């Protein structure tokens, strides 16, 4: 409905009812309405988004900032203004730094291989394949499955005593690994979950971009005798640069807010602690633990704002980095 009605305001561009018309004839209400429609309707059409954004994006953001400057209990409410005390506490809080380290670690372990794998997968899907649609739809399937279901299934796969992964590792003589204890083991297990869910999704986005790369470039490269590998890096990757930047940004934002997978991976329930030594507690989980579970809304809000700033910094950093990597030409 929205999409259908966006086009008309652009078409009558040439009409320009008032100004150039000969004679001082008074504008009819009809003309005036038409002019208003031309100028006003686009704003009306985008208004819902901004109204929703104001209500559910900007307002919570500012309100969270306000709460973070207070000693604020979820149930008891405002206990007084404390200035930046919550942020000062954050800087000296080892649990926060631990959570930040975990978040970055899981983010790196899951995102880098994931995007590379997605690129490769897209390159394969871009070729002439028998049953193309089947394969293309197939890679998106993991993303359609609810994250809760994914986490529950993987939590069992990575079970210590009865998990399939340990069972399979046992065949090659590797002792059972406690996937929920130990930083790297748990980060790896959670990253596998994230990769499983998002690789296909990113692959499809890459594929869409690859389809618009002019085929003549490839033909030319073939004539020049370039290898597949070299064609891929010299033509495909630079050609889909904006898409790569987009996926890196989206993955950064998603990755730094990682919550559901590690939360559900914790066999100790939904406490948000992420393992007995906080091995896989992410920043969002820490926010949940402090702000929701322990009811310290002021501190939770400070964590939320810190996370917001961190995401911002990383998004800018990754934008620059991916721009450099993707522009080898």
């Amino acid at each position: 409905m929205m999409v259908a009605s966006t086009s008309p305001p652009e078409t009558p561009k040439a009409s320009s009812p008032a100004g150039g018309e000969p004679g001082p004839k008074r504008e009819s209400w009809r003309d005036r309405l038409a002019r208003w429609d031309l100028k006003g309707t686009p704003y009306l059409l985008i208004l819902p988004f901004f109204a929703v954004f104001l209500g559910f994006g900007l307002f919570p953001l500012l309100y969270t900032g306000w709460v973070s400057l207070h000693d604020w209990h979820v149930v008891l409410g405002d206990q007084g203004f404390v200035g930046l005390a919550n942020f000062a506490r954050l800087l000296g809080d080892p649990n926060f730094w631990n959570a930040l380290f975990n978040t970055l670690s899981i983010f790196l372990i899951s995102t880098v291989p994931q995007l590379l794998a997605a690129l490769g997968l897209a390159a394969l899907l871009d070729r002439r394949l028998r049953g193309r649609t089947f394969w293309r739809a197939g890679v998106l399937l993991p993303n359609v499955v609810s994250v809760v279901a994914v986490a529950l299934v993987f939590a069992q796969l990575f079970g210590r005593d009865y998990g399939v992964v340990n069972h399979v590792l046992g065949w090659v003589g590797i002792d059972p690994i406690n996937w929920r204890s130990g930083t790297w083991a748990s980060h790896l297990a959670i990253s596998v979950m994230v990769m499983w869910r998002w690789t296909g999704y990113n692959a499809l986005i890459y594929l869409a971009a690859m389809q618009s790369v002019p085929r003549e470039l490839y033909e030319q490269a073939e004539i020049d005798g370039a290898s597949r590998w070299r064609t891929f890096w010299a033509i495909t990757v630079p050609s889909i640069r904006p898409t790569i930047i987009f996926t890196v940004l989206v993955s950064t934002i998603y990755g730094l807010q990682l919550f559901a997978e590690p939360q559900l991976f914790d066999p100790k329930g939904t406490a948000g602690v992420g393992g007995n030594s906080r091995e896989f507690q992410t920043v969002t989980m820490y926010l949940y633990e402090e702000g929701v579970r322990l009811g310290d809304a002021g501190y939770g809000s400070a964590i939320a704002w810190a996370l917001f700033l961190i995401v911002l910094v990383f998004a800018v950093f990754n934008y620059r980095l991916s721009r450099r990597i993707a522009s080898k030409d």
Partner: protein
Amino acid sequence: MGGIRPGRVVATALTAAAATLLAGCGGGRAAGDENTIVVATFGDFGYDALQADFAEAFPDLTLETRVSEFDAHHQQLQTQLAGGRGAADIVAIEEGWIPQYRESHELFVELGALGASDIKDRWAEWKWEQGVADGGEFVLGLGTDAGPLAMCYRTDLFEAAGLPTDRDEVSALWPTWEDFAAVADEFSAATPDVAFADSAENVYGSMINQAPEGYFAAADDSFIADENPVISEAFALAGGLAEAGQTAQVKPFTQEWNVGLAQGGFATMACPAWMLAQIESAAGEQNAGVWDIASVPGGGGNWGGSILTIPAQGDDTETAYRVAEWLTAPEQQKTLFLEKGILPSQPEVYRDPEVLGDVNEYFNDAPVGEIFAASADSLAPNYRGTRDFSVRSRFQEALGRVEEGVQSADEALADALEQAERDLG
């Protein structure tokens, strides 16, 4: 002059307005029917079994139960209290969560003035005390069930380890927790591949629940975990089991716990009355008659049980009170036990001959009425501090680290104390 019709402008504006409105109203909750009393609980409180009696007692009311998962239930209540709307007419709060609501008791209806003070004698004293704030001035809620402890054990694993299987003989094996640890050693020596207890956390928790004070002093709510010998002794004993690899490292109600129960991964587990139904459903039909119930080491303790509160935001808090009073009245409490095995916290009811005579088929015909009544009678009140909830999990995590072999029991306890003090900051 390109097809611009005034109609389209109006339609567009309406679409935009409707989209905005729809987005804005997403969270709204339809107002409840005024003849319906909603009771919010976690898990099965068995109230369905009371529907017929309820219809008779309150012909013009309907009783609706809203059941959520344990954590979600309590967190929802937090949000609803903070937001000032959305809470059910009657809300059950588990004993571990009650202390923190004492701080915000003004968000609930004071039930003493509505008549609760007159029926105080129904409950065991410790249970009544759990539901009051302001030094007893403010009655926050009416007690429902209780969780006096017993020790569930698997007769087949005991037999394989050469231990007695008769429940009286088993009870006689462990009058104290030290004896329990000794039996664990004996068990592990005979059958090294099977864990003796489900988790260090449960052994530890049971011991703490038997003490008059745990992490906080009853007198002034001050943090005493660092000097309370109960904490260090319980931690050392449970940590010792963990260090020796005698625990299965499974937390109750998790998937791994279910698997452990079904496959016989551990031989004993501290079990309050309400746990029996959970064990039965997790261990399944194939394990019927395998489990039995002995007395818990160290005398009676309590784990779990709730009180019914009435959030002040409700429309008709007086009717809600009448329903809550009815739900916790002796006749209904007795029905709940006989129908659903939910143990009342009212001595008169759990000493009722019918209750005392009740046996549980699944647990090898164990006389559950007798076992749990005896445990409830020997139960000493256990003080829970206001911040008990946030501190307790630090010690549970610490025991988890001992089970994982990351830390020794001593290191883990020192760590837990440090973290707890920092949390209290």
